[in-house]
């Protein structure tokens, strides 16, 4: 299929994709360690391995575009420009966190930048994204704008078995809303392989049932995602309606945490095959060969990200905990009447 995009990714885009992926990878590795050292409470679902998807999509979005995320949501917020200080502070349950310690990993959000939350309920995001897209279309109409903001729900292969996904996809299609459905197909719904949880091989096939285009791309290649998502996002912005983009990807670590819970539901060979396609070294090698970045410049990116992380973790650890007296704040929006 031909693309409506004018060109290949520029050097700036390639560097941007890389920067976002590197930020996610290091953020997640350190977060996983902190959890397993008992320093951050609760459970973390890490995005390691899937970085190309969030990064490839997010390069096309502004703060006015919304995303909804999953229980595996840190990567989406990082890619959407998340501040490490506020993110680690949230994972630590501190008042300085994005959600003031009320949400934690599974609900981390940044509404100001259009990040409408990680979500502990599988497939909860798509209906909310459809609502955001409805706003985008409504506001573009009353403000007389031709180009709409776009809402992008991220979800996994397993989520497409939920009724909420179906209702959202159908509504987006009938109303031609500016939504781009990004399926991160990592081959497993928790521990259950895709072949055991759905009788289709390609989630993108479902698009036909809603009357929207469905496309498949290599979720281990940031440029492939960038291309596929870019075309779909541009179509959505200009009134062409929704698209279902399936990114074939893989989770390098377990469902929860780095070490996981020791279930052997994936073979070592399978893990090795996918790890060999790690999106970050692959992208770095390509940039070096193309002369976009030198190995030294790439290392400097990693170093800068790690320095930011170190500083941010320190900030989070030294941040105040919420005051128990404030427990009931924010259950409701205060009103003059009540």
């Amino acid at each position, binding site marked *: *299929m031909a*693309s409506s995009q004018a060109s*290949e990714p520029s050097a700036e885009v390639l560097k941007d994709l890389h920067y976002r992926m590197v930020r996610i990878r290091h953020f997640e590795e350190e977060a996983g360690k902190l959890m397993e050292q008992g320093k951050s409470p609760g459970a973390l679902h890490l995005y390691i391995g899937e970085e190309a998807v969030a990064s490839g999509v997010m390069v096309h979005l502004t703060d006015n575009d919304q995303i909804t995320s999953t229980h595996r949501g840190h990567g989406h917020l990082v890619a959407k420009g998340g501040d490490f200080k506020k993110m680690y502070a949230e994972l630590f349950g501190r008042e300085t966190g994005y959600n003031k310690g009320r949400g934690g990993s599974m609900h981390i959000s940044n509404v100001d930048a259009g990040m409408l939350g990680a979500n502990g309920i599988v497939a909860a995001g798509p209906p909310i994204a459809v609502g955001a897209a409805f706003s985008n279309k409504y506001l573009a109409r009353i403000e007389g704008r031709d180009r709409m903001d776009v809402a992008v729900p991220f979800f996994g292969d397993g989520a497409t078995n939920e009724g909420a996904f179906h209702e959202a996809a159908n509504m987006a299609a009938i109303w031609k809303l500016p939504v781009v459905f990004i399926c991160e197909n990592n081959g497993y719904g928790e521990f259950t392989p895709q072949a055991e949880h759905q*009788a*289709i091989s390609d989630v993108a096939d479902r698009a036909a049932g809603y009357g929207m285009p*469905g496309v498949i791309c290599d979720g281990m290649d940031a*440029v*492939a995602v960038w*291309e596929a998502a870019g075309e779909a996002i541009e179509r959505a912005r200009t009134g062409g309606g929704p698209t*279902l983009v399936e990114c074939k990807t893989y989770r390098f670590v377990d469902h929860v945490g780095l070490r996981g819970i020791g279930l052997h539901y994936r073979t070592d060979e399978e893990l090795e095959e996918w790890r060999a396609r790690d999106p970050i070294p692959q992208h770095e090698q390509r940039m070096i060969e193309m002369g976009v970045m030198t190995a030294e410049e790439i290392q400097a990116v990693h170093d800068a990200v790690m320095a930011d992380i170190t500083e941010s973790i320190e900030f989070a650890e030294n941040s105040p905990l919420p005051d128990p007296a404030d427990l009931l704040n924010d259950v409701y929006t205060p009103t003059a009447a009540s």
Partner: protein
Amino acid sequence: MARASVFDNQEKRAIVRRTIVGALASGVREFRYMPDTHGITAAAAEEFAGEANFVAVDSVRTASALDTIRAAEALQAEGCGAVVTLGGDGTNRAFALGWPDAPLVPVSTGTNNVFPTMVEATVAGAAAGLVATGQAPLEAVAGQVKAVHVEIEGERDDVALIDAVLAADRFVGSRAIWGGDRLREAVLTRAEPSAVGITSIGGLLAPLTPDEDTALRLSLGPGEGGVSVLAPIAPGLYEPIAVRSHGRIALGEPVHVTGPGVLAFDGERERVLKAGQAATLRVARDGPRVIDVRATLEYAACKGLYRDDEPPDGS
């Protein structure tokens, strides 16, 4: 990127089932098949387990072309007499990488394929069965197609069945060819004016059939004495393509290209050439032996192979 399939697993299973029915009618009792993650073929085979022997060959499950390549190698090792492929140009290209001159009935699962054709699986299976059981001689009903052999400096070889093209791209990205202005060199085994893809550029300038023992070379991009051809290089996309020169080349004649660029085979970006990296493209008639379903069944009719009385010509 790939479009979602228009044939879901349910339909694929039905197609496999119809293929088996056809092959059984032709007397096939031994089947070998490539396993898939969703057990599509296995489920169809199970239904006919009482009528024939079905064995899955070894393969891998990487959700990539490697699965098909490995399965093709295994099917060849098993000594299969004919193979039915279900897929598009990409599937057949991968199959040819594993078993270059396979006796093949390529059944298309999409509308935009050049190599496989839309043929009803029942008769596709019947034709494959007639060849596999020796009732219809392969030489009489199949023609060996041309293939573009691609040697890439310092890396593994590759193959294209219809066309190989160098584009001034840098990424395999979402795979589909885009931007006709970035095409540089192309080598075609066939040039069909009614097809969609790079082959159409040649087809609209100098048609070349699969039967002719030459290949077509296109040098693309603006240049002295060039011509612009409005060609459908992708579904729904006519673009004016600047052609500097075009001409027939002999089978075996090498075409040298140099990176940087991306090599696309049969419409999909596949391999990245680094700056200065050389590749050689060469066409030979050593590709799959494609079984002509119509010719095979006409042969069967002529010989009375499905009749219960004496054959009409008495042979």
